[in-house]
């Protein structure tokens, strides 16, 4: 018997170790495992020992790296900082305008939600943490942060960046915590397609892609659509950006369903700092209320400025129109003093008037009955006189019509040339009706 153990010592040791680990695996997977759920107490203890061994080194190297990087970026590599600052100032100004445009809608929406007793969860408090390490395994997409129970972190708290969600806390140790990224194969989240408002479940994969595979084909779902958290998983607050749809294909494993691949909003491969959401509230946070109030005030100020500018523009336009009309009205020209009317009072007046000075009409070469000043007053007209073409004259009247109507006196006046025109040098047309000059 002794010789058996001596002879097969190596194999027996291997078998014993494999058996022990197999039993350990069986114990770990026996309990009902939810996706991304924390481990049991004993496993957590083993992980805690391992993390306690590795984390001090990670903190040490992370500290050295941060110091070197900070020294370089804060004291040496300051090129383009002024330009960057200028760009950021411009961006802030632009964002303030956008904030003002959206503030009224946000306030109104919040008021309506309150009226409808709609339960909304806003991010109230967060804890900033630095990423100090990873799992080092591409089958396990987890990261470690430098905050833990001492900073009031708990399991299942959501981890985000300003760009979008990152994952959730899986294991929390006294001074560090393990974050399960959303692209891990055991990860999941309730999401909402932004434009179509379709709810879905997001899952990670072994290759690190983020997938939605519980939706049937829908023509409304298009690549590029934004995906937000739905809040249904009780981990991520509603409305946080998750990513955008990258591609839509038929799922070969689950035929009626589609395989929607997402591009994450947060850069999950190079995370430096993250925010852990430690508290939510149904009311808007104080800072958000202040921002909204500031936005609303900016919007009011913009509206007042716009109204004032419109009013001033209207007044200027009215003045300008009156000036144009005053300059263009022919009644303002004194016909008796053509030279005075044609000459502006001031040298710059003609140039100031948009239309310039209205030119005086040239003398009529061939006056007829339609020529200005040739129409006799009604008192001088005799019924049937117009048909009397035998005289070949053009009736003309220079006297203004009487203020009070007088009985018409049949009277034929001799044709006279207009006062302000020269007599035509050519022969008058004997037949005015033909309006054709003799050649």
């Amino acid at each position: 018997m002794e010789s058996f153990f001596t002879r097969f010592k190596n194999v027996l040791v291997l078998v014993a170790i494999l058996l022990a680990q197999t039993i350990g695996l069986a114990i770990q997977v026996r309990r009902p495992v939810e996706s991304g759920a924390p481990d049991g107490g004993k496993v957590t203890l083993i992980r805690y020992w391992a993390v306690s061994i590795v984390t001090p080194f990670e903190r040490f190297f992370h500290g050295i790296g941060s110091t070197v990087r900070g020294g370089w970026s804060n004291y040496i590599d300051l090129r383009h900082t002024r330009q960057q600052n200028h760009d950021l100032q411009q961006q802030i100004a632009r964002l303030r305008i956008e904030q003002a445009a959206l503030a009224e809608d946000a306030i109104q929406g919040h008021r309506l939600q309150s009226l409808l007793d709609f339960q909304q969860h806003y991010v109230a408090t967060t804890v900033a943490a630095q990423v100090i390490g990873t799992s080092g395994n591409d089958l396990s997409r987890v990261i470690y942060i430098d905050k833990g129970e001492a900073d009031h972190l708990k399991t299942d708290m959501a981890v985000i960046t300003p760009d979008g969600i990152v994952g959730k806390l899986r294991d929390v140790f006294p001074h560090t915590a393990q974050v399960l990224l959303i692209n891990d194969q055991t990860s999941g989240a309730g999401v909402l397609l932004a434009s179509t408002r379709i709810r879905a479940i997001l899952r990670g994969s072994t290759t690190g892609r983020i997938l939605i595979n519980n939706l049937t084909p829908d023509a409304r779902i298009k690549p590029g659509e934004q995906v937000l958290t739905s809040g249904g998983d009780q981990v991520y607050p509603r409305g946080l950006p998750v990513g955008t749809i990258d591609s839509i294909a038929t799922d070969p494993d689950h035929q009626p369903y589609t395989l929607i691949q997402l591009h994450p909003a947060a850069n999950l491969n190079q995370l430096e700092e993250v925010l852990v959401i430690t508290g939510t509230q149904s009311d808007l946070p104080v800072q958000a209320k202040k921002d909204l109030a500031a936005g609303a005030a900016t919007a009011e100020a913009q509206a007042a400025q716009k109204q004032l500018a419109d009013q001033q523009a209207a007044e200027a336009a009215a003045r300008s129109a009156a000036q144009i009309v005053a300059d263009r009205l022919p009644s303002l020209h004194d016909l008796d003093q053509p030279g005075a009317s044609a000459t502006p009072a001031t040298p710059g007046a003609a140039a100031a008037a948009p239309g310039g000075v209205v030119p005086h009409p040239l003398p009529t070469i061939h006056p007829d009955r339609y020529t200005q000043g040739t129409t006799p007053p009604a008192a001088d007209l005799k019924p049937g006189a117009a048909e009397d073409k035998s005289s070949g004259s053009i009736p003309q009247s220079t006297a203004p019509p009487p203020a009070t109507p007088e009985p018409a006196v049949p009277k034929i006046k001799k044709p006279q040339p207009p006062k302000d025109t020269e007599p035509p040098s050519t022969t008058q047309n004997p037949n005015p009706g033909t309006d054709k000059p003799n050649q």
Partner: protein
Amino acid sequence: MATHSYTSRRELEQHSFPPAVALLVPLSAIVLQALLPRPFPRLVILDLPLIVTVFFAVSRRNPVAGTLTGAAIGLLQDALTNQPIGVNGMAKSVIGYIAASIGIQVDVDTLTTRVLINFVFFLLNSFLLFLINRRLLGLTSFHIQWVHELIRAAINTAVALPIFFLLDNTKRRE
């Protein structure tokens, strides 16, 4: 003149390492493996703990030591992931045992042998992980991409060669 007689290759070239090296090198590999992918995400393709496991196993030429070294490194690696503890432990235990058994029979100090054993052991590690995840843990969604695994094996073999030469200097001949 004294004559020496050796009964086996194991007695001819069995190496040991100072305790500090035996402890710190695997730990450094695990720490580096956890640290490097953060600034350089593509380096997650490396498996430094497996390189160290193979090196210690073939150098010691002791299957028990190789098995225990592989199990310890694999379990520590598992503890840093969200996988059940034992997945990498089992795979590296087997690899440690086989590597040490091969080291008894074959001269593993030549370049060609090192290239060959590293490449084969990385593929074997991928296959063992596939078996454990698919059969023991029942993860039906676990797939293996063999092209990716071949690339991974080639890259890790290229990285393993200089590491082997570096660690050769820490050997303590008995």
